[in-house]
């Protein structure tokens, strides 16, 4: 339908223009996916081939042993588990916290509500940058949580929660208040109203939050880097792979680094392929409303 409408209003000159634009977009798309294709295909190259270089992005000989080596010898099994734990942890925590807080902000009137809300907004903009890692790190040491990824989950979820709370609060505007009232009349408590009646209705926005927060946890880098500086067994993939690059003895193990980067990229990429629409919509909503 769109096509017929466009065809009706476009002249011949603009058809040529459209072709040029199309070509431009193809080139841009190729440049955009190139690094990803390069590293994924490179993960199947032999280390010797990677170290010599060359112009081909396809392996001379397809080799799977890089992944096995990375998985078994270079600790990537552990890194992957840590990444999953971190990402799922951040996701669950973000979902629980933001759905509850967003509901309260949307439906409950209480003194100081605007103030608390204002502090949430303010700290989205107040940002003294990397220095805040230090007090959090020292606090974790005091609480004996500095060797656990759980503190990373808490900090990561805490850093991202404001956006998600705003998303839930905004979404609540589309849920009629009569539903809450009906549930209350039927004898639901405040929490039951939320858990049994509202929560199921929040599914679309919760799916978006799940995606965004999972991505946030999966891609977290500096935070786990700081917390696992002396604790290799807790490193997620992002830290594990880049550490290999910076360490002297890993510099020659390009095949392991390629395989590691691929292991890190593929899961999130697969999720993205199936949910790109929600990803994109969620990010727009988060940025514009937040």
């Amino acid at each position, binding site marked *: 339908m769109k096509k017929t409408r466009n065809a009706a209003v476009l002249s011949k000159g*603009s058809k040529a223009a459209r072709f040029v634009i199309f070509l431009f977009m193809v080139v*841009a*798309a190729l440049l*955009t*996916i190139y*690094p990803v294709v*390069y*590293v994924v295909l490179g993960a199947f190259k032999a280390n010797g081939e*990677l170290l010599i*270089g*060359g*112009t081909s*992005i396809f392996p001379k000989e397809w080799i799977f042993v890089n992944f096995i080596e990375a998985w078994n010898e270079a600790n990537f099994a552990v890194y992957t588990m840590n990444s999953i734990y971190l990402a799922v942890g951040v996701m669950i925590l973000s979902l629980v*916290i933001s759905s*509850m*807080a967003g*509901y*309260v*902000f949307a439906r*409950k009137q*209480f003194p100081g509500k605007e103030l608390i809300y204002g*502090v*949430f907004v303010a*700290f989205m*903009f*107040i*940002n*003294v*940058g*990397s*220095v805040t890692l*230090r*007090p959090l790190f020292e606090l974790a040491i005091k609480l004996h949580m500095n060797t656990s990824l759980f503190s990373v989950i*808490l900090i990561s*979820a*805490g*850093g991202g929660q*404001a956006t998600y709370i705003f998303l839930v609060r905004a979404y609540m505007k589309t849920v009629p208040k009569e539903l809450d009232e009906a549930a209350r009349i039927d004898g639901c408590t*405040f*929490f039951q*109203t*939320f858990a049994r009646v509202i929560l199921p209705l929040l599914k679309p926005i919760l799916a978006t939050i799940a995606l965004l927060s999972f*991505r946030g946890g999966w*891609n977290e*880098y*500096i935070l786990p880097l700081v917390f696992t*500086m002396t604790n290799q067994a807790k490193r997620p*993939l992002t*830290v594990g792979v*880049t550490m290999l690059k910076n360490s002297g003895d890993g510099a020659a193990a*390009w095949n392991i680094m*390629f395989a590691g*980067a691929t292991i*890190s*990229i593929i899961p*999130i990429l697969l999720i993205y392929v199936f949910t790109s629409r929600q990803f*994109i919509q969620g*990010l*727009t909503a988060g940025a*514009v409303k937040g």
Partner: protein
Amino acid sequence: MKENLNKALEKPGISVWQKVKKANNRGDFASVFMLAPAVILLIVVSVYPFIWVFRYVCYEYNGITSYFTGTHNLVRAFHDLTFWKSVVHTFEYAGLKIVFIIPFALLMAVFMKQKITGSELFRGIYFMPTIISAAISSMVFAFIFASYNGILNAVLRFAGLIDKNVNWLGDTKTAMWVVLIVAIWGGFGNYMIYFMSGLSSISDDVYESARIDGANGIQTFFRITLPLLSPMLKVILMLAITGAFKDYEAIMVLTQGGPNNRTQVMFLYIYQLIFGSQTGSSPQIGYATVLSLIASLIVGLVTAIYLFVSRKLDNVV
């Protein structure tokens, strides 16, 4: 007598109990418990570190011992050439990133609106870099730009454009450009999506009438799209500016601020002071807090100037 007293005492007692019960029925306590996790996290993760920063401003602190040094940190900050160079680099990085990324993202968004074959797929591809960790993609780019066995040098040599390998990340002339290319690659899809949502709010009727009046594509863009987009453009620019000034993750992986501090930006320098740099120097936290405050002040000033200028422009237009 005693009974009377009891009764008198009971009355307010009941009313307190009733108050509690009423509050419970309204869901007051439930609300507190439901809001508590978010508020506690906010205090611990955001408010507490912010206050903490002020604590060591006048101290020298290496993570273990601290002692009072008065205004020494501040004096040192003003004489720290590495820091002020990093400020210049931050402006250079942020300025160039915005100059390239915003027009490019806007152009792509406008192209997207033409509903060209496959634009859904293109949108998915352009946005893809934003879902990949900046650390990982930076590492991939470090492979591509590697001087000895990087594929870029191999291709350029093959095409006869260079005779010998260029040390892209190790040369002070090229390192910043590599950092910028990675930043643009990783971010333009995001801004394109913002622009697309801005463009979607412009009614098709406006374009229709422009076409009837005989406006060509370029005229339509400058006379209609840009003015109607300007409120959105301001917000997007604001996001881009504050974002670009805070970037340091990708640079950390790509160059660690090198070569010779050529790509050192404020927040990366501060990070290295807080946790000790790769060379193993000990943390200088007190000094880093002072630099952090100066850095946030700079970002705040830039934002304020931007807001002021954009409002002034509003009056003109």
